[in-house]
């Protein structure tokens, strides 16, 4: 209410002025071509011309006949701009996770490097051999990762379908889901029903059972991966290797889940999928660290600690796999979850 300084110069003074001098303020309809239309009560002509305009009135346009409706171009004005990422607070816990990630990754690399250097200290043969082993291992893992990662491109289609659902664009959503249904065994029989869907909500309801089925199968894949990574972490000699195995198995799992959803993986879309998935997986890591610390604090017996430490690491990895499967399945759904 800061209007006091916003006085229009068009006649507000009329309200404070003495009566005798006032403008004709009566309501009236004044077609523009006859400006001297009738005020509600007669007033001397001279006065009317001298005074500022006061009362409300309607002034019809000269052009008779219906006018087109006003158009504010609202649809164009409100189209979504490139979706602004919601501001995530880089909270204390976020920093801690960042730090842990850096420490984990960095130390594993340093570990490996130191080991190689140590081996060189023992002798050139051992050194070169170790370097070869490490480089070979890293290269193999890297290429494996690369192949897996490259495999995922049709994620884009998922994004298009979701966007269509979000916009409420029935035609586009139908087209996308039809294509999707053709590539997914579970959804193939749905195609006629999809063609007949009359609204976005109906379309969503039709897809739901098939998606639930896919989700259950993704969970099974996750359990398999969990068992495998549990086994690997239990027998592997170094935490660095654990991490690599975990990453490789993780990407493979994501790819399997994507295949389940009829996605033919490729590079461009994969990045989006992985980003979505890993962002979530990072959250999981945060709680895992907390759980792990709690477990260690409880198990102060040395022997137990030795034993449980390994098992806990394996359990953490397994839990991550389960979670990853779920998150990946969510990321691959043609219909936004919920």
């Amino acid at each position, binding site marked *: *209410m*800061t*209007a*006091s300084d*916003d006085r*229009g110069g*068009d*006649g*507000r003074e009329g*309200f404070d002025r003495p009566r005798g001098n*006032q*403008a*004709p303020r*009566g*309501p009236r309809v004044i077609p523009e071509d006859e400006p001297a239309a009738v005020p*509600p*009560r007669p007033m001397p002509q001279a006065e*009317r*011309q001298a*005074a*500022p*305009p*006061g*009362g*409300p*009135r*309607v*002034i*019809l*346009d000269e*052009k008779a*006949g*219906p*006018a087109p*409706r*006003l*158009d*504010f171009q*609202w*649809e164009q*004005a*409100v*189209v*979504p701009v490139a979706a602004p990422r*919601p*501001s*995530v*607070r*880089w*909270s204390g*816990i976020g920093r801690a996770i960042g730090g842990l990630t850096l420490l984990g990754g960095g130390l594993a690399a340093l570990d490996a490097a130191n080991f190689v250097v140590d081996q060189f200290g023992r002798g050139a043969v051992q050194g070169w051999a170790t370097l070869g082993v490490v480089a070979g291992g890293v290269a193999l893992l890297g290429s494996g990762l690369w192949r897996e990662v490259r495999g995922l491109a049709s994620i884009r289609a998922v994004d298009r379908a979701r966007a269509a659902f*979000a*916009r*409420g664009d029935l035609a586009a959503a139908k087209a996308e889901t039809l294509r999707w249904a053709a590539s997914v065994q579970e959804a193939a029989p749905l195609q006629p029903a999809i063609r007949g869907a009359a609204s976005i909500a109906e379309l969503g309801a039709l897809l739901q059972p098939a998606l639930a089925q896919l989700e259950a199968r993704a969970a099974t894949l996750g359990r398999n991966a969990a068992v495998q990574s549990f086994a690997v972490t239990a027998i592997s000699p170094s935490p660095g290797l654990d991490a690599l195995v975990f990453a490789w198995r993780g990407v493979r799992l994501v790819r399997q889940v994507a295949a389940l959803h009829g996605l033919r993986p490729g590079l461009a879309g994969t990045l989006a999928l992985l980003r979505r998935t890993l*962002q979530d997986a990072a*959250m*999981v890591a*945060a709680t895992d660290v907390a759980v792990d610390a709690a477990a260690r604090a409880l198990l102060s017996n040395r022997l137990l600690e030795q034993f449980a430490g390994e098992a806990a690491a394996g359990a953490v990895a397994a839990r991550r796999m389960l979670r990853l499967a779920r998150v990946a399945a969510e990321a691959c759904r043609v219909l*936004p979850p*919920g």
Partner: protein
Amino acid sequence: MSGLADPFGLLRDAAYGAERLGRSLIGQDRIRLAVTGLTRAGKTVFLTSLLANLLAAGRGQRTLPALERAAGGRLRAVRPVPAGIEGLPRFDVAAHLAALAADPPAWPARTEDLSTLELTLELDRQSMLAGLLGTRSVTLELLDYPGEWLLDLPMLNQDFPGWSAATLARLRRPGHAAAMGAFLGFVDSLPPGVAAEDSLVQRGFALYRDALRGCRDRLGFRFLQPGRVLNPGPRGETPLLWFFPLPPGARGGLAGLMAERHRAYVEAQRREFFEPYFRRFERQAVLVDVLGALHAGQAAFDDTAEALAAIAEALRYGGGWLDWLTGVGVDRVAFVATKADHVPARQRDALSSLLGHLVAAPQRRATGAGVTTSVHALAAVRCTEDDVATLDGRPVAAVRGVLLSSGRSAKVYPGEIPLRPPEPGFWDHGFFEMPEFQPPRLDREGGAGVPHLGLDALLAALIGDVL
């Protein structure tokens, strides 16, 4: 209506407060937004625009920028809560939108019954733990109803003699004379101890009903009771309504019957309207057609202010120790001048300033109870664009729109909007009825929302803090 007098109400309040607390702890807030407004204030249109624009915002359309900012870009989705087993009609946004978008367009008819809708806003959590806890939701409960019924709320605290005296005193004011003459003549001629003869009651009631209708439709008055006489609802008139105020000192059968019906009516309204919908709410938008009241003359303007004050008096804003104990109370109230598209942009501040004076009493009452209040000017559906008209050789700021009645384009100069309740001389120009405008071109499905002015700022002020 103190809590002490009504222990069961108190218990229900406590349960309600506990439920609210629990819900907010698990991130599933539930907020009842009471939209109050006298008849023709623009409630139905407001709700339609609110729902259409929120749903569009949930689809990512940028229809409510200020609200989006208040939510920090975390609004993920908005959906109507699916129908359950409610015994009330659902507020039909799609039908209202289709009527507004149709050719020729139609504004919603007078609301005749209650209807409700709940909307769930889904939001990302702000913290890094978001991925673990999932999204947060805020459910908005909305209600549409005939504006006339709101005036039954002040009746809840009055007995028949008290109500009669207050009502007759109001209706005897000179401004009401044109419509009230016949009825006042009738009650004043009644002998004091007259019996409750059926045809006499019928005649008195018919006169009273016509008088109230005349006051509402021709003179622009709003403080007219009981509300159901003007708008009986889907079941039509029932004998419960057949009462009218009697002069002080009335005795005998007629007075007894009137008092009995009055009591039963008040009880019914308390049970069916006040208790379920207005006893507890967290946010309130008070819609006022300021311009309409201004153009209807001084008596109608003062009458509107009086009606708003009486309604605010009857509502619970919390702040008492019992409210504090049960955790029930209103958090925010926004006073809103609707149809702000009837004045050019430069006059909208004046409109909200004038509204601030008009609702001074309700606002004082709300702030006294510790409620945060704000004043806004809003057009739920923007129907005009600013233009300049030449009046008596001088350019004045006006608005241009397409008239609903003739389909012709016209400029409307709404007069000068005073910043405070104007001096008596201001009213000399007599009545002016703002013409209805056609809504602008709208998308029939409402996928992109509805053009509005200031709806986003209002929502940010009302619910921005819970997003």
